[in-house]
């Protein structure tokens, strides 16, 4: 048995992992989420804002990490819409602009058609330059952003009146898939103006351990990976979700993506733990056999 497991073709493991993810997706398995302190902190930061407050949403991710970050991006936009905040979208990743356009279509245009472009929300689009862009928008946005993503002169957009730099924002949200992302926003913006810029973020699982040292002084709230997204979704939908006459949630599935993806997570993690345990058992059994010999 040990010999069989030791020499097992790794493609059987891949197949097991594929099935452990595919079956819960087909069954649409979902579990109840209990929000953590960090997710509640993110939610509370947005809840503190008043109608008409300005919020900057920096979408620093691309389709490669959409599976992890897309659900939290959708919920962030929904939360901002419910709170009637003025949303300023921007991206430091080239395809981040498409992520912005996608979320504007999915959430704002579909469910909040009363919101007007230029008055309630606007898209500044992508600018190359990584942390260089952060340095510039801290002092003078117009040096970089002469027009918005659609080519309209920045001074002709009503909600840009009186906004010279990002210090005018009441809160900043960054959704980050890597470099440049939350780390750079903390380093270049928050640390320099800790009293004027408050940042909360959502990030990929790979980045999360690197960002924990900034909590809570430099980063009051963080949604870590799909788990953080699922918790935040629950908080937002519990407060703002529409219910039918029986009290059941009556919403489109786009606001439950995070929780939907936690089903495959659970099964795949159980498989992963089992594989690690089996791998270790084989290792120790092998070592004991070598010692005997």
């Amino acid at each position: 048995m040990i010999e069989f497991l030791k020499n097992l073709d790794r493609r059987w493991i891949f197949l097991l992992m594929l099935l452990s993810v595919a079956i819960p997706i087909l069954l649409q398995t979902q579990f109840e989420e209990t929000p953590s302190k960090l997710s509640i902190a993110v939610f509370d930061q947005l809840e503190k804002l008043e109608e008409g407050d300005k919020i900057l949403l920096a979408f620093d991710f691309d389709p490669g990490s959409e599976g992890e970050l897309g659900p939290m991006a959708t919920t962030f936009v929904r939360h901002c819409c419910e709170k009637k905040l003025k949303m300023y979208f921007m991206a430091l990743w080239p395809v981040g602009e498409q992520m912005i356009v996608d979320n504007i279509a999915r959430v704002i245009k579909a469910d909040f058609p009363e919101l007007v472009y230029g008055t309630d929300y606007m898209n500044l689009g992508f600018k190359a330059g990584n942390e260089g862009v952060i340095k510039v928008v801290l002092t003078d946005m117009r040096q970089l952003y002469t027009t918005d993503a659609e080519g309209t002169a920045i001074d002709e957009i009503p909600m840009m009146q009186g906004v010279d730099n990002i210090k005018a924002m009441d809160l900043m949200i960054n959704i980050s898939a890597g470099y440049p992302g939350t780390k750079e926003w903390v380093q270049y913006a928050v640390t320099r103006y800790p009293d004027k810029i408050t940042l909360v973020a959502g990030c990929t699982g790979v980045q999360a351990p690197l960002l924990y040292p900034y909590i809570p002084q430099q980063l009051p709230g963080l949604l870590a990976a799909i788990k953080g997204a699922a918790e935040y979704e629950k908080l937002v939908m519990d407060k703002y979700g529409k219910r039918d006459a029986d009290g059941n949630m009556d919403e489109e599935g786009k606001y439950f993506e995070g929780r939907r993806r936690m089903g495959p997570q659970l099964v795949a993690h159980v498989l992963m733990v089992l594989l690690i345990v089996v791998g270790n058992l084989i290792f120790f059994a092998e070592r004991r056999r070598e010692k005997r010999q």
Partner: protein
Amino acid sequence: MNKSNRLWVILFIIGAVLVAGRMLISQSLIGKAYVQAVPVNADEENEDHKWTLYEQSSQTKFNEAVLEDPNQTKYLFSFSRTIGVWIAALLTIFVLSFLIRDNPLYKFAESIFIGISAAYWMVVGFWSTVVPNLFGKLSPDMVRDWAMPGLGIDERVELMYIVPLVLGLMLLWILSPKGGWISRWPTAFIIGVFCGLRLITFIHADFLSQIRNGIAPLWMVDSSGSFDFWESLRNVFLIIGVLSCLVYFFFSFEHKGIIGKTAKLGIWFMMITFGAAFGYTVMGRIALLAIRLEFLFDDWLWLIDPTGKRLEAVISMLGLF
């Protein structure tokens, strides 16, 4: 035909049969995409300034609209987006096929990805940065007439931007067979600027701020003024963890006695951190696999319909689950 090629042919046939079978039991062909026509009226007086945007829609909305008015033109079947769904599905399968072994289909998908990424970065960089932030500063009138009618009319020529133009041209000199050394000057400028920026930022944001974050009270009280055991324990762990990890990287003394034991504790803290990082990485990768499978099952094969996009989803249709 060798064993490997035989395996590929068998897998291909099984896949094709499954997709064909799925199409046969479907009420309509699977993997179709629908759009909603949104008229845009930028200028009431000028007919040239009116056009139609096609935004993503769903089969549900299309069917509802057709039932109401069979001649409606607001919701439409999109042939180009349908082709897009099929190409995306096939490329996803090509990339996943690498798990079986390296193969020409994977190489094909990889080459397309690299080519498109490089071209996309180049085009986006040109239109979002070079045109508005360089040409737009040096010759705003020309850029307004040529590419960006929305550029503000009070934009003035800023001659200082000749410096980045010259530096950019010098950087491109690396492509020339002679005088490649010229590109070293702007490269040196870039390295110098970023070293300076990053050094200062690191000292502020990481070094000094982290020292401040590490100074935490060991006796915590909650909002009612009573002792908060768990917060206090957290801070105790934080300080022990920081100090023991620092001792591990302290190589001026041999790791023996109390220093050795503290360094060993530091290794344990680091191992736990690496384990947590690995766990998060696994979670991230599974989420990425989940969205690709969800795309294949939902948008392509129409097996599930979590967002209510269509009337038909085979899993619910067959009443299996």
